[in-house]
């Protein structure tokens, strides 16, 4: 096990920009989180982050158009789960995608904010070719380590 975990091991899921595949992707992401040893709440957070990111690809990247490709790569590392999402839609400057402070008077605008609340890293990048690339990282908290990262005395 330790030997296998030392290198990244992964699974790749190719879906299209149809909202109904989101539940399938979430189920797969949930199992990968479980395999990584995340607790159930952390698994939920990882699922939510990936789901919000994909919903944004469908709505913003592809403007709601169905049938367009999305590639999700789910990888296990000894210290983290890493999920990459690649689309081939309308790209925007990566640092223009920022969390907005929740505003109860307006429905919507929560996606990126929730992503940042749920995982440790949310990094948008310019893709090699059309579209965008996003890397989501959820770190594993190992026993003997506090949540703030300080090793126990």
């Amino acid at each position: 096990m330790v030997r296998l975990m030392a290198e990244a091991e992964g699974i790749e899921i190719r879906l299209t920009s149809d909202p109904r595949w989101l539940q399938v992707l979430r189920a797969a992401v949930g199992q990968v989180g479980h395999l990584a040893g995340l607790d159930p709440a952390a698994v939920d957070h990882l699922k939510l982050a990936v789901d919000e990111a994909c919903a944004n690809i469908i709505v913003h990247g592809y403007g709601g158009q169905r049938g367009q490709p999305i590639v999700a790569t789910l990888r296990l590392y000894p210290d983290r789960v890493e999920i990459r999402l690649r689309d081939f839609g309308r790209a925007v400057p990566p640092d223009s995608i920022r969390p907005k402070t929740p505003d109860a008077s307006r429905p919507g605008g929560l996606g990126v904010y929730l992503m940042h609340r749920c995982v440790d890293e949310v990094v948008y990048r310019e893709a090699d070719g059309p579209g965008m690339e996003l890397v989501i990282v959820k770190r594993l908290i190992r026993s003997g380590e506090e949540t703030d990262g300080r090793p126990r005395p």
Partner: protein
Amino acid sequence: MDVHVRNDGASTVIEVQGEVDLYTSPKVREAIVAATKARAKAVIVDLSGVGYMDSSGVATLVEGLQFSRGYGGVFRLAGLGATVRQVFQFAKLERVFDIYPDVAAATQSLEPRTADGS
């Protein structure tokens, strides 16, 4: 995901079962729009059967609250599980909504107070 609507005189209860996301939230929205168009005095959304909700679900509920406020109606949420509650916490909406442990609690407080009760 399933949505069941029942009218029990004083209130319209929208019972949601399953996962609420970009695919399924339009069905929840439909039920909320129908109830608020009919100017239901009280709309109670029963989320006890919901194990997952994303921002599209949250946005749908925020919209429902606004529709309802538009005509002076009551809009309540009931039965949020830990996963759903966490999303409301993250979104800082826990105090914006009237949240009850279950439909019974949400309904009970709607009943007119008895003469000696106030």
